[in-house]
């Protein structure tokens, strides 16, 4: 009898693969490795300036490998005004927008803005991670997700890994309590730092995340963001929850 949580039906997504874009061989190696490990969709962060050339190459490699590509931009604004300016410029061009929060004001603005898909806190220092209950409340209303990069858990050691694990334990608890979707991404810039989706779920044991939530964080949650944004970027989108269903001759006249 097939199990309810059969891995075969799950579509695993790594929304933060970080290959060196200037090196096509490395890009190819990373995408092939991700495909080999069972990912059906990969998100690659492209630079905000002239992303089209890189996107073309990545799309071609992904098509050859049988993996779906999601275009993503990581914004690292210095202040909320810069964040808003970048969002206005990029939102209609890119499928997923992540904001790396290096200051509290940027974190708050990113959490309440519906155009931001992912909140990311790259620092390992607890003082520079601003994901608390207030931030989680804003993020939950604006449908922003909290992203956890798994690569630092692999390459950090000793005290710094202890600090990171302690922060992640608190943050994941806050996110789960407030209904903020979690996303587990590799954040890997090297093929040897990539792991299978289920292995990442196993690694979340280190910060007390339960297996079911961990598996959702590597499959359903990122997939939901991608589908939502693709619908918004389609020509049939008019306004939130308003879509064009028929056009032209298909429309019945009164």
């Amino acid at each position, binding site marked *: 009898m097939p199990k309810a949580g059969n891995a075969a039906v799950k579509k695993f997504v790594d929304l933060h693969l970080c290959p060196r874009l200037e090196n096509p061989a490395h890009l190819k190696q990373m995408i092939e490795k991700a495909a*080999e*490990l069972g990912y059906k969709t990969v998100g690659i962060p492209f630079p905000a300036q002239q992303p089209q050339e890189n996107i073309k190459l990545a799309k071609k490699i992904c098509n050859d490998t049988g993996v779906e590509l999601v275009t993503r931009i990581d914004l690292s604004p210095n202040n909320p005004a810069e964040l808003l300016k970048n969002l206005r410029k990029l939102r209609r061009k890119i499928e997923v927008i992540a904001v790396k929060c290096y200051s509290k004001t940027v974190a708050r603005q990113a959490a309440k803005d519906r155009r931001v898909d992912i909140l990311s806190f790259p620092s390992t220092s607890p003082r520079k991670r601003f994901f608390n209950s207030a931030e989680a409340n804003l993020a939950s209303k604006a449908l922003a997700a909290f992203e956890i990069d798994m690569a630092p*858990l*692999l*390459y950090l*050691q*000793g005290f710094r890994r202890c600090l990171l694990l302690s922060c992640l334990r608190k943050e994941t608890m806050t996110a789960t309590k407030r209904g903020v979707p979690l996303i587990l991404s590799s954040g890997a810039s090297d*093929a*040897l*730092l*990539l*792991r*299978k989706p*289920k*292995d*990442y779920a*196993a*690694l979340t*044991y*280190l910060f007390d995340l339960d297996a079911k939530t961990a598996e959702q964080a590597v499959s359903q949650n990122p997939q939901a963001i991608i589908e939502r944004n693709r619908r918004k970027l389609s020509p049939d989108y008019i306004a939130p929850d308003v879509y064009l269903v028929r056009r032209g001759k298909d429309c019945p006249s009164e």
Partner: protein
Amino acid sequence: MPQRIRRRYIAVKIDGNHPFNGKTLQDAVWNNMLRLFGEYGASQAELFLVEYDPERQQAIFCCSHKSLDLVKASIVATTKIGEEKTAIHILRVSGTLKSLRRKIQTIFL
């Protein structure tokens, strides 16, 4: 009456270009487990290497079923075997060696 110890067998695939022996592999996972969970945690895992196939770069570990999550996290977090960078991927987990061997025959990583 002492209870029978229930075990779990974990099949893994090693991703790396450099050859090494089973002892080095076991030491790498043990050291990682000690770093992550300390001597107390590691003592509960009852982890040992059952077999290692250098040609297919596959190995089977055995551990106590209560410590399965701990051992899986230790295996996945291993980034070096000896001095060489590697990655270890979990293929399957099973309750008996016989069923594990049957299952991994069908896996092509």
